[in-house]
């Protein structure tokens, strides 16, 4: 045998490594190099001009803030609703499998499709939401959900809540099912109320799952694109413009490849920082 057994793993790993380098590494390096180029300077010159422009770009700072708000509230609401639904589905519920499927449905709807559906739901003339709220007497006149500056971001976050909570729910449900029943039984015998059981058994039991769900959800929400692009295209003004839509616009609408690459690099650094606790946790386990 020309390869020793202890080196055999390389043969199996190599195709995957090559594929990863080609599919992820090469575009990433190209993008980083692009971010140091400028349209005017030509390929040979590498400068920090794009990063300096980013610091002065008022739209970028607004977009960064919008992304923070969007991600913070989306993730927080995903966690709250996801945990609540997971606990309901973990209880002795009749027809549990059916409810689990129903709860998962929003998650299987593609981002753009969800955006288009909700854009029509929110429509002030034809929208089902206004119609429903008027019929049950909660509204007198239709609300401009996506055009009202005070409501546009909230409306986008609400749709994202609907679309994204099942993922968190799924992870936390798996965590809930791994908590031994006897802990609750012992607590009940000792007379601990449900809230105490939740604080001292459920939450500690879910700690790792919560970190996983948080890390993955934050990364996904920072990258969220189709939903906002389909609903508001960043408007009104730049009230719902987030980093992903701004990068897309710079790259594909304005053809500013170099500047868009700089935004992507900043986004990647932020995402890496956010992912650190998750990476640390995984490495600790190993």
């Amino acid at each position, binding site marked *: 045998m020309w390869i020793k057994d202890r080196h055999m793993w390389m043969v199996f790993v190599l195709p995957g490594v090559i594929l990863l380098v080609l599919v992820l590494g090469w575009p990433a390096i190209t993008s980083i190099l692009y971010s140091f180029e400028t349209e005017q300077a030509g390929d040979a010159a590498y400068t920090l001009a794009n990063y300096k422009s980013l610091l002065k770009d008022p739209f970028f700072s607004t977009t960064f803030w919008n992304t923070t708000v969007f991600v913070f509230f989306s993730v927080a609401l995903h966690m709250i609703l996801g945990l609540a639904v997971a606990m309901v589905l973990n209880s002795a519920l009749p027809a549990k499998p059916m409810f689990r499927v129903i709860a998962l449905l929003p998650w299987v709807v593609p981002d753009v499709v969800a955006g288009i559906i909700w854009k029509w739901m929110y429509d002030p003339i034809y929208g089902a939401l206004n119609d429903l709220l008027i019929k049950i007497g909660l509204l007198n006149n239709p609300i401009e959900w996506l055009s*009202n500056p005070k409501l546009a971001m909230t409306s986008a976050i609400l749709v994202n809540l609907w679309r994204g909570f099942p993922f968190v729910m799924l992870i936390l449900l798996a965590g809930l099912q791994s908590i031994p029943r006897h802990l609750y039984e012992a607590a009940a015998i000792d007379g601990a109320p449900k809230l105490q059981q939740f604080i001292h058994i459920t939450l500690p039991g879910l700690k790792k799952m919560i970190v996983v769900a948080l890390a993955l959800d934050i990364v996904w929400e920072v990258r969220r694109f189709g939903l906002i692009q389909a609903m508001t295209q*960043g408007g*009104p003004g730049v009230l719902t413009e987030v980093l992903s839509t701004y990068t897309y*616009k710079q790259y*594909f609408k304005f*053809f500013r490849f170099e500047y868009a690459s700089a935004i992507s690099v900043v986004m990647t650094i932020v995402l890496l920082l956010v992912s650190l606790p998750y990476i640390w946790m995984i490495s600790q386990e190993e």
Partner: protein
Amino acid sequence: MKKIFTISVFMAVIIIVFSFNSAMAEQVTLRFSDWHLTEDVWNKSLNEGMDIFHKQYPNIKVVLEPVSYGEKETKYTVESAAGRAPDVFHVHAFSLPMFFGKGFAKDLTPFIEKEGSGFLDAWYPLPIKLMKHNGKMHAMPGDYMTMVLFYNTNMFKACGLDPDKPPKTTDEFLAYAKKLTRDTNGDGKVDQWGFGTVGAKSPGFSMRFGPFLWSFGADYLTPDMKRSALDTPEAKEAFAFFVELYTKHKVVPPGLTAMNPQEVRTQLAQKKVAMIMGSGWTPPIVNKINPDLNAFEVLQCAPAPVKRKQATAIWLSSWVMSPSTKHPNEAWQLMKFITSKDIELKWFVDNRVTSSRKDVSGVAPEILNDKFASVMASQLPYGKVEPQIKQWPEIMDTFTTSLQEAIVGMKSPEKALSEAHERINAILAR
């Protein structure tokens, strides 16, 4: 004898295989991409056109690649950068500078020179001028139309307005829009609006806003295209007029900043609005959305309302050959075919889009006698094209952002326009 028979069969098989291979080798496949392929009416028409092409050029097989209207630039940019763009594709004329700048459009001069002098004389001069980059033809012109005011004659009649006397001035237009905005079912709430327009960050916005801006005597940029021209009193007046249609006069339906062209056409098709800005594509699309409206009968069109001077926006599309095409000669045959006189007339008959060829739009009775096309053709002398500079999409996005801020009341029209002016200057100075 048996041996001879075996050898003969063997030879015959070889000849057949070689003939087949040689025939296969001559067969060329071209990729053709157009956003119209996603539209029912156009899709049928383009497929019929390609059937004719296949009969004329049996050695060329054309594979159709649909792309959505909003994503065409994205698709072609990525594919061009990777050297895998369709052999022939369709874009707005105002997207061309970006494609030219990145080297994503093949120089067509050698093909045009082979066609002989005078080949381009069949087209109007302006479209030809806009297809040039560094003095050389890098694209062929396609649809060439003006934006006009479409209105529902039945809704005019219901409000006591004479459909044969559409609004001519912006003052009349506002008066008409106010009259057409009303509560039709008596529940105390407005359910019909005078004017529907695009307010979203869409390529269709500038086509609808430009006629107002230019008619007020203003412009986006200075003539040398080096600076913003939005600080003039005329620009401020036009901007305020457009914003106040929504904020003050309330003749535009709610949700304006989220409205794309198709949603506005849906409002016209569903009789929610009585007037919109549109062009040749409007009647067939509205008819498709709501056949019960009987759009070809009920709709009528008129020149864009005038404030100080007659002006409108010109819609011009263009056909681009990818520099990475492996079959440039066949791709040119396809481009020549889709821009030929007969086929351009077919595009009009099927889709109501007028041609950039003057030997079609200027002479064809089908166009000259059409109630919509005749109005659009009459406006060509007053038509303006959007600036053909690579910063244009970014400038328009900046402008639309400010307009939206004024529409939703985040900023006064003066402040929003002033900010747009400064930002556009910063973009141009970069």
